[in-house]
């Protein structure tokens, strides 16, 4: 390709400028930890992290340490890493180190915020996990579609419809009935998206926008017309999924109660993570799906039915979004309210891009969003002097920074968003 406006940077390449910039970023973080946190705490203050969930039977003592000592160690490590980056450079591992240092900054922030107080770390992580569930599942939906070359901006709409349908059918039958219905509803919308974008070659972003508008309209319309009416209120109390404690795993200290005392949505997220990763990269199904998203014509010449593969991928993606939507009404709160997804579908989209179109990356991005979302509650409780509105903004700004290439550009499927013209 001759004249693209921005050069494509291969994932492994670290330019000298970037090396220096990153070095200064690392040092900046070190300085921030020193000035903002380490110098603000009294020498004798303690930070207490509670490691046990309130109802958990697995006992584990609180984690108590000196705030200032911990903070001083943190900034020194960051400064050393920054110095090394400036002088020698971590090359390929720059992003890894950036992740590490970001982690230390966050830990430093928590240590500072909690100094002289206590914070339930286990609870924070559990909330992070739960908040990540719909986002990650939504991102999986995006991955399925986009790996096959179809942009799905309609995750939000599919989630919303999935949540609505799951509520109604969950109320009429049981949780499983609701789940199946919600998943199918997502699939039906995706089928429409597939027809529009694959058969009619409508711009995929427009097609997605239409589905979003339609979903908001339809669910709100039906909700106002039926669910809000007292005589139909029985349609808005679905049976939801109970917590299922996994026998041995839930006994593991700290991690057990956080991860293995949850309902099926959390487990499903991990199962889908494995299935999707393995399926995409280690099976015939995945190889073909990805080939259709990378170079559909090549796939076509090898006898792979591009249209059918894309239909399949998009419909599966829609079902995944329907599943993600069902989480809201069957896995979280058994009740549908207008617009209850609150933009999570769009965050999913960001998480997918953030996660480099890969299931594991998306989970990471989902956890990051979940963490930011949960942390703001804890910070409000710790009376950290940051207005709640700014805490609410944090995840979105973080996404923009990541997208701006601070962490490096991802590898989008080459044919993403391009309709395939057979003739």
């Amino acid at each position, binding site marked *: 390709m001759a004249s693209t406006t921005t050069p494509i940077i291969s994932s492994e390449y670290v330019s000298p400028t970037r090396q220096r910039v990153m070095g200064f970023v690392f040092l900046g973080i070190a300085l921030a930890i020193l000035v903002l946190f380490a110098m603000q705490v009294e020498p004798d203050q303690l930070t207490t992290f509670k490691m046990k969930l309130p109802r958990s039977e697995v006992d584990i003592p609180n984690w108590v340490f000196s705030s200032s000592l911990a903070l001083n160690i943190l900034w020194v490590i960051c400064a050393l890493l920054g110095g090394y980056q400036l002088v020698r450079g971590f090359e390929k591992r720059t992003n890894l180190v950036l992740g590490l240092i970001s982690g230390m900054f966050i830990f430093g922030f928590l240590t500072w915020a909690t100094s002289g107080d206590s914070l339930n770390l286990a609870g924070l992580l559990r909330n992070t996990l739960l908040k990540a569930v719909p986002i990650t599942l939504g991102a999986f939906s995006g991955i399925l579609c986009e790996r096959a070359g179809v942009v799905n901006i309609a995750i939000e709409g599919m989630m919303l419809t999935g949540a609505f349908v799951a509520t109604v059918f969950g109320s009429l039958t049981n949780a499983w009935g609701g789940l199946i219905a919600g998943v199918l509803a997502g699939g039906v919308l995706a089928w429409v998206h597939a027809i529009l974008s694959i058969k009619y070659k409508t711009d995929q972003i427009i097609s997605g926008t239409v589905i979003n508008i339609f979903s*908001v309209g339809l669910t709100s319309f039906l909700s106002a017309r039926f669910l809000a009416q007292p005589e139909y209120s029985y349609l808005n109390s679905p049976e939801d999924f109970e917590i299922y404690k996994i026998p041995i795993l839930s006994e593991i200290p700290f991690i057990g109660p956080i991860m293995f005392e949850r309902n099926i949505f959390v487990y499903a997220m991990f199962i889908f993570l494995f299935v999707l990763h393995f399926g995409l990269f280690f099976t015939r199904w995945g190889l073909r799906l990805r080939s259709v998203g990378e170079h559909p014509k090549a796939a076509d010449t090898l006898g792979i039915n591009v249209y059918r593969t894309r239909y399949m991928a998009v419909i599966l993606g829609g079902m995944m979004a329907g599943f993600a939507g069902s989480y809201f009404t069957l896995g979280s709160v058994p009740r549908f309210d207008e617009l209850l997804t609150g933009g999570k579908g769009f965050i999913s989209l960001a998480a997918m891009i953030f996660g480099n179109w890969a299931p594991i990356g998306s989970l990471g991005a989902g956890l990051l969003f979940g963490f930011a979302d949960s942390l703001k509650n804890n910070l409000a409780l710790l009376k950290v002097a940051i207005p709640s509105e700014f805490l609410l903004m944090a995840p979105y700004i973080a996404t923009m920074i990541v997208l701006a290439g601070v962490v490096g550009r991802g590898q989008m499927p080459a044919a993403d968003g391009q309709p395939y013209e057979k003739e």
Partner: protein
Amino acid sequence: MNETKEKAPQKNAAQIFFEEMRGGSVAIPILAIISGFILGGLIVAITSDEMYIAFQEGSTVLGLKIGFNEAVEAFKALFIGAFGNPSEIWAAFRGGDDIAIQAAIKPFLETLVQSTPFIFVGLSVALGFRTGLFNIGAEGQLVIGSVTAVWAGYAITGLPALIHIPLALLIGALGGALWGFIPGWLKAKTGGHEVINTIMLNFVAANLTFWLLKYPMLAPNRTDPISPDILDSAKLFRFFADEEMRFHIGFFIALALGALVYWFLFKTKWGFELRTVGSNPDAARYAGINPARSIIIAMSLSGALAGLAGANEVLGLNHNLAPAAATGYGFDGIAIALLGKSQPLGVVLSALLFGTLRNGGNTLKRPPTSVPIDLILIMQAFILVFVAAPAIVRTIYRLREPEEVEEGVFVRGWGGS
């Protein structure tokens, strides 16, 4: 090829119209709107209890009849809500009483009031489309525009209306422009996709506004997050003394901007640059146009137009700012720009349609029809599908295929480069 135009580079309006008609450029939106209404009516019918009761207790025919009536009643309400009652209008004009005429045409004027922000956001999104940008953040730009405009409305004092109003509008536009500039700059410099960035900025704008209203912009002596009222000198001129006749000059400002955007896009070299970048960024670079600069300019202008929508709402209608000042306009803007084929004239017409639906919808949701206003969203979605996938409409109504592709294609995918 049309033989008549061979030696006539300057086409007149009638020629353009017939050409467009044959190619479906005009026919398709019209048929799409008709189809949208039919499907909307269908939804009203199938969600009405009365129809099912009639099915159970009466006959199928009766049920269908009742369903049909429900839909007709709904659209009647929508029509009267949007344009007024024809017989009343007729009577009022015959009577010649000013007050009665005012009352009779009030729904129609209210439709124009409701259309005004739609024109602005429609133009905003259309300008982006023309430059190959998908501005999904008109919502956030609108919010920021209303914040800055309301600030200019109450904080700047001592100016005559003739200066204060344009100044407040300008500051509103600048606020929106800033909120468009950010994703534009990010796109041009880092390739970060504007769809994601504008979505993110919508959330940021909402939270930022709430904080501003809670603290720096909180009206004196109040506790709830609400800004002070703007000064009288910043209020957009209203044409009627009656408080309930909200028709104000904003509508004409919007129309003027429509003309301005048309002139800018199609009659100036700047517009030529933006459209070239939108149609073929590689060719634009080849032709010496700086696509990065064009992207930044286009996003800023797009933001400015959306910001004006917000300014229009606070300066013309609300006169102060509270949370939930305006919602949903971002997606409406996309729909309007698509429906209007990103042509300023088309955008104005589509915005009038949306204003009609919105205002009519307000009547629709009141008794006796009590149809949730969300119906119009569903109808809009249908209309859009048909516009975006003209092949469907062509199949249904058996139109011929167009020969030429249309100008202005979006950047596909997320990569941004």
